[in-house]
């Protein structure tokens, strides 16, 4: 074997999460009443744009969740097989050139020269203080001053063109699928998509994809010879760092809610449904936990875990495993501090539900408690759970950055937006300023959080009965029109 598969703790949970999502999707597809609100999500323009962006991020995150240790190259074929200490991921393989082409120190985006002056040997034997050429960035250029602009422009154009071709193929496939689904001819389907007449906003989705393809194509074309977003203090490619940070952000945003969900659901429903001393005990528990300011509880817990990890180095064979456990622990402790909100909501809803006639009827028929809860109460509160999960995501991604800044976030060796911002702070004071790390973290983080916010809003609008009536009047008229046309066409 050329590698040894490594499945980190968070990897297991990520796989579990994917499994849960796939299973839920299959289940929802089979039930019309569950499909209806999702159809409303699919009709929301901003929601679908957010979803497309999220999917792109998730693909990067999933690639980064497949870990392995490569085999060390041996000169002696009979030697015992040994694997590198470094744990790599599938994303590292894709980004191999970015990962390995290290410069000496800072260099600006697309630069050909180092950021700092150094003493370099001239060909004629003398010495001079100048900006040395980069080892990899633009190394193919003979005369950077003259050729640089032309080369970059050629690569950007080529990359955008390549991206556009890929996009056209994707677009053709999408329109063909739409044509088949509606039974229309291809030209009609194309016209409908282009004029924004489809129910699912295909035009917006395709335009978002076009932006991604063009940007991606240009980046790939440039990245083969340049450091597109520059390099950091130790000469590592910033683009590589932000791409690796995506997984950390996604893991924090999703696993935190995943680990807290069982507690929040079980305790919240139990408190509301059973009442009495159960309610008192659970309320006491969450008031107590809630009354500790979140940052402080997290700080205290992470400090203590740090002591534990330092005291037991034998438990962690690789640095990646140690960093991963810290990430998992951070998720758990963030979950402990954030489950109270959901718990309270569920308690309120369960209190309301248990007074309804159909549940009293179930009581009268002698249905057992756990059956009433799983059969009648749980399905009726799931919309609250779903809304909370998607709404919480962006807040958690933002929280990670703050916690890493405070020093109680992810392991300093782990790439994350928080550690990037933290390092970039000190770089701002340099003259000339090193802005690219911060800018890269900013752009990626805002894109991710904004997409998550847009998607979360459309999910909430579709699922929360209270919000639906608060939509602006124009939107409501449009909805009504849509509903009418569907009825006319006999789809609804």
């Amino acid at each position, binding site marked *: 074997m050329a590698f040894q598969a490594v499945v980190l703790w968070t990897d297991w949970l990520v796989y579990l999460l994917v499994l849960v999502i796939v299973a839920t999707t299959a289940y929802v597809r089979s039930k019309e009443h569950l499909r209806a609100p999702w159809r409303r999500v699919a009709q929301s323009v901003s929601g679908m744009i957010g979803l497309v962006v999220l999917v792109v991020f998730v693909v990067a995150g999933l690639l980064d969740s497949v870990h392995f240790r490569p085999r060390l190259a041996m000169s002696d074929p009979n030697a015992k097989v040994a694997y590198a200490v470094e744990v790599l991921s599938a994303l590292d393989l894709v980004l191999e050139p970015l990962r390995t082409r290290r410069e000496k120190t800072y260099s600006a985006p697309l630069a050909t020269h180092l950021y700092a002056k150094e003493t370099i040997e001239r060909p004629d034997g003398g010495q001079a203080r100048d900006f040395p050429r980069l080892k990899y960035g633009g190394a193919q250029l003979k005369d950077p001053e003259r050729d640089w602009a032309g080369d970059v422009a050629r690569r950007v154009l080529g990359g955008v063109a390549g991206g556009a071709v890929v996009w056209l193929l994707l677009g053709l496939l999408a329109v063909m699928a739409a044509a088949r689904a509606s039974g229309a001819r291809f030209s009609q389907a194309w016209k409908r998509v282009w004029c924004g007449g489809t129910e699912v906003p295909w035009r917006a989705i395709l335009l978002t994809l076009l932006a991604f393809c063009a940007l991606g194509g240009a980046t790939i074309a440039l990245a083969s010879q340049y450091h597109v977003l520059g390099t950091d203090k130790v000469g590592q490619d910033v683009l590589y760092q932000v791409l690796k940070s995506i997984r950390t952000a996604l893991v924090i945003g999703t696993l935190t809610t995943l680990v807290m969900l069982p507690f929040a659901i079980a305790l919240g429903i139990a408190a509301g449904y059973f009442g009495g001393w159960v309610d008192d005990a659970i309320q006491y528990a969450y008031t107590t936990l809630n009354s*500790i*300011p979140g940052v402080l509880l997290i700080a205290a817990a992470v400090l203590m875990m740090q002591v534990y990890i330092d005291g037991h180095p034998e438990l962690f064979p690789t640095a990646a495993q140690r960093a991963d456990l810290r990430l998992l622990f951070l998720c758990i402790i963030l979950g402990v501090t954030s489950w109270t909100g959901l718990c309270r909501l569920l308690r309120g809803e369960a209190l309301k539900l248990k007074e309804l006639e159909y549940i009293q009827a179930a009581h009268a028929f002698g249905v057992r408690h756990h059956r009433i809860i799983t059969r009648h109460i749980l399905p009726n509160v799931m919309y609250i759970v779903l809304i909370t999960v998607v709404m919480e995501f962006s807040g958690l991604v933002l929280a990670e950055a703050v916690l890493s800044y405070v020093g109680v976030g992810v392991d300093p060796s782990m790439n994350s937006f928080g550690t990037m911002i933290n390092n970039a702070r000190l770089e701002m004071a340099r003259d000339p300023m090193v802005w690219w790390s911060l800018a890269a973290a900013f752009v990626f983080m805002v894109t991710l959080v904004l997409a998550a916010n847009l998607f979360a809003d459309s999910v909430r609008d579709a699922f929360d009965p209270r919000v639906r009536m608060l939509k602006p*009047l124009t939107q409501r008229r449009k909805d009504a029109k849509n509903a009418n046309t569907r009825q006319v066409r006999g789809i609804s």
Partner: protein
Amino acid sequence: MISYIIRRLLYAVPILLGVNVITFALFFLVNTPDDMARMQLGAKRVTPEAITKWKQERGYDKPLLYNADAAGTAKLAHTIFFEKSLRMFVFDFGRADDGRDIAREIRLRMGPSLAVAVPAFFVGLLVYITFALGFAFFRATYLDFWGVVICVAAMSISSMFYIIGGQYLIGKLWHLVPISGFSGGLDALRFIVLPAAIGVIGSFGASTRLYRTFFLEEISKDYVRTARAKGLTEMTVLFRHVLKNAMIPILTGVVVAIPFLFIGGLITESFFGIPGLGSYTIDAINSQDFGVVRSMVFIGSLLYIAGLLLTDISYTLVDPRVRLA
């Protein structure tokens, strides 16, 4: 009312006790004082004598819960739980690692925290409500639509970017105010303006959007339609009726936050070098000063409970239907 407040205060005791037990478990049971000593001293200097000395200096050399060697009540009193956790109820926090008295330090640092947080709080509230009411007035127009778009975009930006951006733009580029630091007296104003302004801008998006939904929810109610049907102008309806009623949900979120003004913004204070409680906490976390972190956890939960109580009392002030009994 008075009896209600007293009951609530009594109810706070078990909660604070619970907080105490949690922090005690976190700091002393999960890891023994020996572990902490080893970590603080660093790997090289760990000798049994050094650990004993470290524990003695901080008073960690006693048994955790029950001291069998002592006599009488001292059996329970001469323990870590009593001396480090229960003594907090009388605001005796002991000493920080640098030897200073934590309680005194907290008193000193309250001022700067309040100086930044209070203006930010009130200006922020005014700004958010103004904008939210404006969006609600222009609801279902392009102004409202783009206002919400800007809010969503603004809430997607991490607060740290606002701070770094503000410091760079106003402090470094335009040299309007010093980038960081603090001083007493009127001079403090120069140092307060930027962090307070950034505090307001930082939560503009989320708060304005939230308040806008509160206003819209209120606007869609029947009494508003009645008011309009009576012939009241939209202005009167908004200010006399909607604003007053929407204050109830707004207060719920806001009043809880008032006590936390003492702690101030953790991040803001440490970025701007304001010697308040927030930066004190962050410094303690970074230097792993467990005593200070424990004290701040206690103070934080105390303030939270005070916030809940204040919220309930404020309801009676804005909503005559609410009676506390």
